[in-house]
């Protein structure tokens, strides 16, 4: 991996400074959102499994900077940052983590299952690899309907060992579908290193059996990620050429909020967070080039702090889903002999000892 500074120094000249500042703002927002999410989990405001994007901010913001509104995104369960960077306000996202009716999935999905139809954020999925064929299918629909856009199939490094991934590669290339296989290579699937999981640890080469082009990119460099995504996105859209992007980043914490991360050497983790912090490095870069100054950085920190706090306040103030809505959205097309609100109420009452 090239140093962030090296690859970016020359490129910075050609950039719109507002864009750069916006990227920083987004990355900082994700950073702070996840830190506070972790706190909220410890406070039991959030339940279930909860996976954070800490360390992957540049990967996410770089990707989103390359996409157009026509594009669709399917991700795994580690997706808080993606939906926010795609443009969904932090409030409804936090509300979803809190399981509230105002959450992006009505409180029914939780941390692993965020969704936003308006921005084409097509969901977080929690069966490893499950989202990949879905994304290929969305690309299939775009092509079928002659619509512009591409589809991003986001996944982790560990996901590249499961059958669904390979079947998807074959279908995508066979049928020339506009899909980008976006591998967030944070080096681990839970406690399993890439080398323990994959006979080919250079994940960008995993398209070789399918005639699919692949590239590795530094996932802590927001501009490098953006540029690679733009390039491969254009090829996918214009030529129907799917591609693999192996985006290397550093997982700051354990696999999920409750993972104590005992299998990684603490010194490795400490130095990794030191060296590969995309947010701090980008701040330093912008500062060095006089694109931002201390005041601006401070103001951003305050702004983000406030926005995340407002998201938490919004989530806290939001109502829980109602028991009578237990069966709502069970089916899109109603048919006879399905349970309704009265059933829900009766069943819940029995369950709670109120009948």
């Amino acid at each position: 991996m090239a140093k962030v500074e090296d690859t970016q120094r020359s490129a910075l000249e050609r950039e719109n400074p507002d864009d750069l500042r916006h990227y920083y703002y987004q990355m900082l927002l994700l950073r702070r959102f996840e830190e506070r999410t972790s706190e909220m989990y410890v406070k039991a405001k959030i339940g279930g499994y909860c996976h954070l994007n800490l360390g992957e901010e540049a990967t996410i913001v770089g990707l989103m900077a390359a996409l157009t509104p026509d594009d669709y995104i399917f991700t795994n369960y580690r997706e808080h940052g993606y939906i926010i960077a795609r443009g969904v306000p932090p409030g409804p996202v936090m509300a979803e983590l809190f399981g509230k009716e105002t959450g992006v999935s009505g409180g029914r999905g939780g941390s692993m299952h965020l969704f936003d139809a308006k921005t084409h954020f097509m969901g977080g999925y929690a069966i490893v690899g499950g989202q990949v064929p879905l994304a290929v299918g969305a690309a299939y629909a775009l092509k079928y309907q002659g619509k512009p856009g591409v589809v991003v199939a986001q996944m982790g490094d560990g996901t590249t060992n499961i059958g669904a991934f390979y079947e998807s590669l074959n279908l995508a290339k066979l049928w020339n579908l506009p899909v980008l296989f976006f591998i967030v290579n944070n080096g681990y699937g839970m406690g399993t290193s890439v080398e323990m999981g994959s006979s080919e640890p250079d994940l960008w080469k995993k398209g070789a059996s399918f005639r699919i082009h692949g590239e590795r990119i530094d996932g802590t460099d927001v501009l490098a990620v953006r540029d690679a995504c733009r390039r491969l996105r254009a090829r996918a859209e214009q030529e129907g050429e799917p591609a693999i992007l192996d985006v290397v980043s550093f997982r700051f914490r354990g696999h999920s909020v409750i993972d104590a991360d005992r299998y990684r050497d603490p010194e490795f983790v400490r130095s990794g967070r030191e060296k590969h912090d995309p947010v701090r490095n980008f701040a330093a870069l912008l500062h060095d080039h006089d694109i931002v100054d201390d005041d601006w950085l401070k103001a951003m920190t305050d702004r983000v702090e406030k926005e995340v706090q407002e998201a938490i306040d919004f989530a806290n103030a939001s109502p829980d889903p109602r028991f009578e809505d237990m069966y709502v959205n069970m089916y899109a097309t109603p048919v006879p002999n399905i349970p309704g609100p009265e059933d829900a109420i009766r069943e819940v009452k029995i369950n709670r000892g109120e009948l």
Partner: protein
Amino acid sequence: MPVITYRQALNDTLGEELARDPNVLLMGEEIGVFQGSYRITEGLLQEFGPKRVVDTPIAEEGFVGLAVGAAMLGLRPVVEIMTINFILVAIDQVVNHASKIHYMFGGQVRVPLVIRTPSGGTGQLAATHSQSFENWFAYCPGLKVVAPSTPYDAKGLLRAAIRDDDPVMFIESLALYDTKGEVPEDDDYTVPIGVAEVKRQGTDVTVVSYSRMTAVAMQVAQRLEGEGISVEVVDLRSLRPLDRPTIIASVKKTNRAVVIAEDWYSYGVTAEIAATIQDEAFDYLDAPVRRVAGLEVPLPYAKELSAASKPSANSLIYAIRKVLEGKKK
């Protein structure tokens, strides 16, 4: 009314729906160039071209998942799984994905997907090609599961399934493909999902069945009529949602019930039906509900063993006589 085969009814319906809605497309192994392993899609590639009739590689998990994703963007894929046995490699996409997406994401997106597949098996297809798994799907909230027994229902339910905005498992039967029945022409009827039908009125005993076993039940009912036994046949048609009221109404009338299905006995479809009847018609039952189903073995290949391990008309007659024992004429 014209009399056509179950196969023809399916083939016609697929063609009509392809013609009606440009978002409908067929997808599956060998459905195009090969014309369908069981010829259900015969001629459709020629008529509608490769955009609408899509031959896939052998990658069920991949293309079922692809169909789910495509449905989320507004296509209406009708996927053929060659036989239900092969859906095991794709079942994660059906159960962990298709069935959950609408609910789990708060109703923001729909999955108008149909998966057609024949279940069961009469020939000597051996252990991995003779199974019934519709009970597994019927178990899963978020799915709809239908299993027509006649050409008329095949057409009406397939139309309903394709026009429905939820994932529908459409269960067929190899042994029904060549059976015939009346199907109206120029009539855009649908058969409602979630509604059973009393296929034959009777007073002595209710037989509850679906798919091929309904055909068996109808033959048996006819045969027993000669002996003065009046059999009512309730054809479930849908396994999910399950039309409990129709079943119960029938049993309250006849006071006796036999449930028959081609699947394995324990934990099969007949268990749910029998459990439902004893719960909701307990005071009306004059005898325990009897269940007729397949023997619990990996289906052996040898001809006679194979035949003996699937329920027959004889098995049903035996069960009917048992529940009628002691009934005064």
